[in-house]
């Protein structure tokens, strides 16, 4: 009898199961079924579980861990002071925690913006602003407004620490206890401190969000719904890159995850300049960085992808195709599965554009400044030129006949020297879609998760 972990991803469309033999470090099986969040989330789970069809006399399931992006995922708005500084820092922290950031707000918030937030039905509000010892006025003003208007929505305060006492008083006076304070997301200028905020988001997610998403029925059966799915992917990627206490990771890597509604890019790299004489500008980048492109997706976001890429660019990859109607159809039929060659080719083309644009936006770029002493260069964002591992995942990549070709769109191009995409990465595909499952597994058994990712994704 072997011990097994059942790892569950309650996705927005599919509930995906991965059953792992933790003794022999092998994947026993994977399966999926449509997520049933509107009725009872366990119906979809049971259906997927029945499909797993494993030898029950051989394996004993000792633990069940889950992540979730069902029911719209973890919806957040973030508030900061200056758009390029604390607003951006708080947005990055929320994205890294696996949230969907619906909107960000800068400076003092207006009544109209309060109304807007109310309409969005967000799960968590993140309030930041000011470096430690810096501006207090704005965050205090915003805290007053938030404390007045939002008693039900959990809030995380991660701004100027010198404002914390006053903010606490504000909340106490209003008998609003629905907030947590943590370390400043930007403690000093351009320094970013995302990890404490990420942890608080995860805490709230585990405590409050599961219930509000109608997932409590799952809680009885499952040992824990630990985090939003994107956070699990980032966690798995981080273990693969950095390794564990006992074993080395593989070093810097990038994961591109193309979904129906969004394209996520995760980079695990410091991204410092790889060439001499380059001046690093702007807010520092977190080592584990996630960006989400809400306008680049294969189904729900097919129309916005079309808009972002422009038809002429799609036709460069694939001629004689009416992309307008193809994207409209995909947008209207989010469960569409391409069967004939032409439709598969269209999906492949959309995936290429999504990869290209999402990577262009994720990586840093070089800006040339002409000075009396000659050219000088500013780097904004991460330099990922020398990253060796580019990993693709998501339905369209997994099911593609030629996923490497899609991923190649995410590499450096001589035609645009200023965009710092990896030059010659080794391309790997997460064929079994195990990254999020391994992220979950790594909470209990990091060594096992690392070894399995090396085996199943890299073929080592």
């Amino acid at each position, binding site marked *: 009898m072997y011990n097994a972990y059942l790892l569950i991803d309650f996705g927005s469309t599919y509930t995906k199961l991965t059953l792992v033999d933790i003794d022999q470090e092998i994947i026993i099986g994977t399966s999926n079924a449509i997520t049933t969040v509107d009725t009872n989330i366990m119906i979809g789970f049971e259906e997927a579980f029945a499909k797993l069809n494993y030898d029950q006399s051989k394996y004993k399931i000792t633990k069940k861990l889950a992540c979730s992006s069902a029911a719209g995922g973890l919806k957040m708005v973030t508030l900061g*002071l*200056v758009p*390029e*500084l*604390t607003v951006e820092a708080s947005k990055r922290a929320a994205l890294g925690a696996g949230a969907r950031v619906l909107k960000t707000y800068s400076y003092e918030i207006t009544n109209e913006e309060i109304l807007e937030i109310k309409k969005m039905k967000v799960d968590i509000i993140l309030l930041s*602003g*000011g*470096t430690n*010892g*810096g*501006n*207090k006025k704005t965050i205090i003003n915003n805290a007053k407004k938030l404390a007045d208007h939002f008693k039900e929505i959990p809030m995380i305060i991660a701004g100027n620490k010198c404002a914390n006492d006053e903010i606490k008083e504000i909340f106490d006076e209003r008998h609003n206890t629905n907030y947590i304070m943590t370390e400043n997301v*930007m403690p*000093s*200028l351009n320094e970013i401190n995302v990890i404490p905020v990420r942890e608080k988001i995860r805490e709230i997610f585990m405590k409050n969000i599961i219930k509000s998403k109608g997932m409590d029925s799952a809680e009885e059966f499952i040992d824990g719904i630990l985090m939003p799915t994107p956070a699990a992917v980032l966690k798995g990627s981080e273990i693969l890159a950095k390794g564990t206490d006992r074993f080395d990771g593989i070093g810097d890597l990038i994961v591109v995850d193309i979904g129906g509604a969004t394209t996520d890019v995760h980079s695990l790299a410091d991204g410092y300049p790889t060439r001499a004489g380059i*001046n690093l*500008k702007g807010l520092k980048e977190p080592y584990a960085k996630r960006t989400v492109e809400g306008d680049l997706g294969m189904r729900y976001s097919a129309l916005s992808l079309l808009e972002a890429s422009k038809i002429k660019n799609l036709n460069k990859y694939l001629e004689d195709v009416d992309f307008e109607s193809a994207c409209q159809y995909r947008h209207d039929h989010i469960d569409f599965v391409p069967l004939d060659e032409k439709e598969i080719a269209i999906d492949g083309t959309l995936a290429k554009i999504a990869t290209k644009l999402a990577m262009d936006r994720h990586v840093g770029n070089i800006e040339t*400044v*002409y*000075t*009396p*002493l000659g050219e*000088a260069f*500013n780097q904004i964002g991460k330099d990922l030129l020398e990253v060796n591992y580019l990993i693709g995942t998501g339905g369209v990549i997994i099911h593609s006949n030629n996923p490497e070709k899609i991923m190649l769109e995410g590499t450096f191009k001589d035609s645009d020297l200023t965009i710092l995409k990896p030059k010659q990465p080794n391309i790997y595909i997460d064929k079994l879609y195990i990254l999020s499952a391994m992220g979950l597994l790594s909470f209990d058994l990091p060594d096992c998760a690392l070894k399995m990712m090396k085996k199943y994704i890299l073929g080592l």
Partner: protein
Amino acid sequence: MNGKTVVIGVIGSDVHAVGNKIIDYALTHAGFKVVNVGVLSSQEDFINAAIETNADAIMVSSLYGHGEIDCQGFRDKCNESGLDNLILYIGGNIVVGKQDFVEVEARFKNLGFNRVYAPGVKIEAGIEDLKKDLNIKE
């Protein structure tokens, strides 16, 4: 520490980093909290830093002669950003060639700078003035 925050940096397409480091060191030594935006900094870089850190003053350096172009509208942008009474200094080789400094000073004061320093002035002089302007008692 005297509790006052100063944003420093080198404005425009100017890469002179050495003086910037010296100013950083000297101000820190004199008890200021220094926020250094570094070389190749735009007006917006200075202003954004000043907002987030609630700075009391901005000290702009310019060594390459184009300071006057780089500083156009600086005070206006500060006012627009809510930094109403912020103290603004500039120093270095702020204009091209050898010009009459009285005129140069007048032009920069007209741009909204509180104090303007000629080439060769030591940072200690600037620190003295800053302490005076911010009412810092020794």
